[in-house]
């Protein structure tokens, strides 16, 4: 997939805020929570007519323009939201898994502008203007990605929890040219842990797709 940046959002400018403003905003946020909107998808509360105040440099509510699996989203989010939590909790894309949530296990691997990254270690707002691809974006049950099909053929999982991250990372590993041998695959896949120990089968799945020359 050819990745090019979608136009980045405007620059965020720092506004000096006084304590009163912060308190008022906190009150507003609480009010909205009480009104029961807190669990609504962010996309529902991000329109122009929403009750949340809009301002840049806010502690609670920052604009985000992001493309996920080819679909553009305009959102208002708490800047503390990691990309992983945005995907899972707000956009319902639960294919990307939360393992350690500390950047150690690789279960949350997604592609940002075509490069594999850890979605738990980046705030979603930092990805403004970028293109994200998740496991949901590379294949469908009807038309599996070649590496998804290879994982099934080679039994590349047991519990399956690390699998989306393994596959997203494996696709990158092949694209980067780092899947030339078993040793190379093991080295460049070392950021993806599998507690079931399906490593030999994962390596075989990746090597098979790499050696088939199929486009990934």
């Amino acid at each position, binding site marked *: 997939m050819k990745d090019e940046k979608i136009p*980045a959002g405007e*620059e*965020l*400018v*720092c506004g000096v*805020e006084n304590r009163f403003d912060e308190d008022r905003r906190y009150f507003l946020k609480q009010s909205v929570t009480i009104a029961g909107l807190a669990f609504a998808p962010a996309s529902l509360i991000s329109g122009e007519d929403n009750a949340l105040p809009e301002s*840049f*440099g*806010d*502690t*609670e509510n*920052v604009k985000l323009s992001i493309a996920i699996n080819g679909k553009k989203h305009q959102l208002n989010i*708490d*800047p*503390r939201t*990691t990309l992983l939590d945005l995907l899972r909790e707000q956009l319902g894309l639960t294919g990307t898994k939360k393992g350690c*949530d*500390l*950047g150690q296990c*690789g279960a949350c*691997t997604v592609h940002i502008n075509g*490069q*594999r*990254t*850890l979605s738990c*270690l*980046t*705030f979603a*707002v*930092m990805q*403004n203007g970028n293109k994200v691809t998740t496991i949901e974006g590379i294949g469908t049950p009807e038309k599996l990605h070649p590496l998804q099909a290879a994982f099934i053929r080679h039994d590349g999982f047991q519990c399956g929890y690390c699998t989306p991250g393994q596959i997203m*990372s494996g696709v*990158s*590993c092949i694209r*980067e040219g*780092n899947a030339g041998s078993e040793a190379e695959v*093991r*080295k*460049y*896949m*070392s*950021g*993806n842990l599998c507690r079931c120990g399906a490593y030999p089968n994962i390596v075989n799945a990746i090597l098979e797709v790499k050696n088939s020359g199929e486009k990934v």
Partner: protein
Amino acid sequence: MKPFQYLRPSKLKAAIEMVSGDPQARYIAGGTNLIDLMKRGIVTPEKLVDINHLPLKKIEYKSGVLRIGALALNSEVAAHETVLQKHPLLAQALDSGASGQLRNMATVGGNILQKTRCTYFYDTALPCNKRDPESGCSALEGINRLHAIFGTETENPAKTCIAVHPSDMCVALSALDADVLLSGPGGERRMKIADLHRLSGDTPEVDTTLERGELITAVEIPDNAFARNSHYLKLRDRASYAFAIVSVAAALDIDNGKIRTARLAMGGVAHKPWRLIAAEKSLEGQPVTESSFRKAAEVAMVGARGFGQNDFKLKLAPNAIVQALLTAAGIE
């Protein structure tokens, strides 16, 4: 996580102003270490200044100097043609660090400024002089297998810290005698990478000599004659994706079977990337033999001390130095 204000400046000056005047403000670039620290409540900024939109990504070579922008990604630097050609040691060190995903996120500036991975620093239930000054060092009598063997002296033992700097890249930069370019409220300056990180001393909470608001803008490496004979050796508990127990960056300029100049630095052994100047000097003019390397390793180990579980490093480190030099020299 504590709420924070998110700011995204596009100009260097604006970014520096946002951080220099506010002790609660922090820069964020790749975020691979800072977000981890924020999730654990170890770093709690009220203002996060995202510098990813500053024009600091370029890697360029001009009149004998390779200049790497502070926002260049670890993966970009490791795969850069000029880096591979002129400073393969740096590419090797970068490639041995972290994972494919993290190298795609972590920047050069962030790599330099990353915090130690001492488990007690991250465990907020236990004392740590670096996280909570004068609370004590849990590693001294605790699990210190990965800890420092050099530069741990302090006048006040209550303020001890025996944590190590975790970067591989900085060990290579140290051996390559890189300059770090800085921009801050007081203007621009540059310093040797060796002067940027501190030993823990009596203030382990201070990792670097940077001033508040000062930002790393680039790293510069001057041309050298080491490209043909250099090696980064990293010893760790796993074959890949683990921090160094001991690492060695070795570089030799060999002329007619004799060493003209040598560069040596170690990782995983001190609070900062540990340059081995005396050992370098001892190699000058010596024949390229294992016995020269063995002598240099002895010189390198002067002043080393273990803390129990890491005593094995006192044997491992000199052997690692010899092995790295042998590989750099193309002997084995």
